[in-house]
């Protein structure tokens, strides 16, 4: 396999709330390889968006990366100064947000918002920038691109606005695109269209993507590999089929069990009891999922499990699979 585009190793992110430090991300380790779409799933509040914000250096003011490595190709992202960040953002790594309506500036024309990325990262002439912007607008499926160039965001429908946001992210031809719930705010029919656009981008542009979603329908449609996050930890990772067909972590299993499906019609949908603990309520030095886990045993309350390779690329962070605890335990398949 070729060298990864992005490597994150043992990254911790903390929030400072009222002079108290709260760990929001713990020991985050993963890589993204060329032409690969990595999905991050989990309930809200698990740290999916925070992970992507850390990668782009746009964490909220009271959050800091405490330790760990983040590398884009050979660039150490943690060492970057503001000036160097600006060269990476948009040009190498770009981001697509959930809410297209608020992600766009209401008072700036669509064309200007898209072409701005070219203005900072290239030295094209004005005409060339406009030409490329209109081409990009056509590529993301915006009709009458020449007319829409001068339109303001509120004149567009939600789906079209999201296409504009995608065009903004693609215009400077980045090789890593982070999409943070890009379809969540849209109507179901529009969701399908935008998802189709993402698939087109995936196959035509050959760029890597991190695709954040809580919706397995979306994940299953586009991702090659999946990271499952819970309460600031990556609890399981593997290829799409490994995760979907052979989930290991009890949290992943529960999530998959909770997917609505026409075959389950008539049966009451499974839900995971309890909710993701808030930042202030998180226990340290125990398995973060223990409180909601149906397989909880003594090891779970003693220490945080290490991530354990199941086979190949498939790994889980659960005491059921750790050598110290799990193997000594009589665990029958569920």
């Amino acid at each position, binding site marked *: 396999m070729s060298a990864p585009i992005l490597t994150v190793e043992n990254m911790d992110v903390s929030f400072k709330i009222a002079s108290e430090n709260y760990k929001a991300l713990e020991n985050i380790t993963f890589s993204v390889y060329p032409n690969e779409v990595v999905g991050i799933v989990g309930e809200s509040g698990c740290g999916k968006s925070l992970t992507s914000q850390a990668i*782009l250096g*746009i964490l909220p003011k009271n959050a800091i990366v405490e330790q760990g490595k983040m590398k884009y190709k050979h660039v150490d992202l943690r060492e970057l100064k*503001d000036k160097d*960040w*600006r*060269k*990476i*953002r*948009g*040009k190498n790594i*770009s*981001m697509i*947000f959930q*809410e297209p309506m*608020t*992600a*766009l*500036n*209401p*008072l*700036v024309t669509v064309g200007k*918002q898209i072409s*701005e*990325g070219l203005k*900072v*990262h290239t030295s094209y002439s004005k005409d060339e920038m406009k030409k490329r912007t209109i081409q990009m607008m056509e590529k993301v499926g915006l009709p009458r691109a020449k007319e829409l160039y001068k339109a*303001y965001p*509120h*004149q567009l429908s939600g789906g079209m606005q999201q296409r504009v*946001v995608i065009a*903004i*992210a693609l215009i*400077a031809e980045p090789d890593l695109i982070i999409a943070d719930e890009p379809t969540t705010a849209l109507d179901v029919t529009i969701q399908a269209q935008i998802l189709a656009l993402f698939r087109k981008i995936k196959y035509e542009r050959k760029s890597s993507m991190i695709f954040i979603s809580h919706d397995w329908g979306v994940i299953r449609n586009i991702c090659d590999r999946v990271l499952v996050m819970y309460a600031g930890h990556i609890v399981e990772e593997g290829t799409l089929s490994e995760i979907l067909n052979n989930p290991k972590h009890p949290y992943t299993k529960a999530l998959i069990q909770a997917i609505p499906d026409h075959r389950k019609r008539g049966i009451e949908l499974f839900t995971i009891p309890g909710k993701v603990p808030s930042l202030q309520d998180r226990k340290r030095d125990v398995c973060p999922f223990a409180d909601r886990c149906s397989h909880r045993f003594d090891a779970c309350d003693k220490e945080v499990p290490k991530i354990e390779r199941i086979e190949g690329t498939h790994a889980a962070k659960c005491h059921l699979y750790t050598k110290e605890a799990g193997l000594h335990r009589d665990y029958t398949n569920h």
Partner: protein
Amino acid sequence: MRYFLYKLSSFITTIIIVSMMIFFVFQLLPGNPAQIILGIDADPNQVAQLEKQLGLDRSSAERYMDWVAGLLQGDLGESLRYQLPVSDILIERIPVTASLAILSIILTVVIGVPLGIFIAHSDGKRVSIFLNVLTQLGISIPSFWFGFILILAFSVTLQLFPTYGYVPWSEDFLGALRSFFLPSFAIAVGNIAIVIRYLRNTILDQSKMDYVRTARVKGLKEHSILYGHILRNSLIPVLTIMGLLVADTLGGSIIIENVFSLPGLGNLLIQSITSRDFPLVQSMVLYIAIIVLLINFIVDILYKVIDPRIRLKG
């Protein structure tokens, strides 16, 4: 268009109500107005004549209609003291007050907007508390007292500006500017503080918006994010308070003209109150109120024209 018609109709209704209010208040002059105007020991014949001139022998409704009909034809009545049509007197005074107001608004924008932007950058806790108290001080200072302080500093001590009096623009442009500068600044100081506080707050609010994150992720410089994105969105709300600021400026000029002895509307208003020239006072109050309403109306329309979200709606 519908918005415009709605605003126009409420503008006109409000003018009508204001004119009725003013007329009504002046009907409340205790006792016989003619007697009050002329004084207790006036000649009864004169009183009778004035009664007729004021139309006191007719009903209030008739007199109101007369007044309004006159106003619509540009006839604001006749001043008792000057024995001249009110409109002739006002025309002489308006340029002074208008110069004062315009210069003061220019100062407010030219000083307030850059300071507001500059201060939005400094979000250090100590600095922001200091600025908070300082701008509140600007709002709290009585403008006429600030006028004294300016006179004390710049006219008496430094002798940079004339203390009192008025030089018409046509006579000496620089001289006029010098004579208007201190009074305009005295009126502007409170408004500058308001603009700074308001702009700083909207910039800080706008900085938290998602579109700012989008702009940052594009790789834009903070400078370009501020001027290309945040400022556009912050200045529109500032425009909405411009109407209020113009009203404040006109209100402030009533007092300031008296501090600096400038022969404007405010100066005339106080003189005519002291000399009991009620027809003049009544018309002037209405005139000033209409200017305020008109400016608010224009700001309302302008605001909608500038904001594409509203301009391009249907």
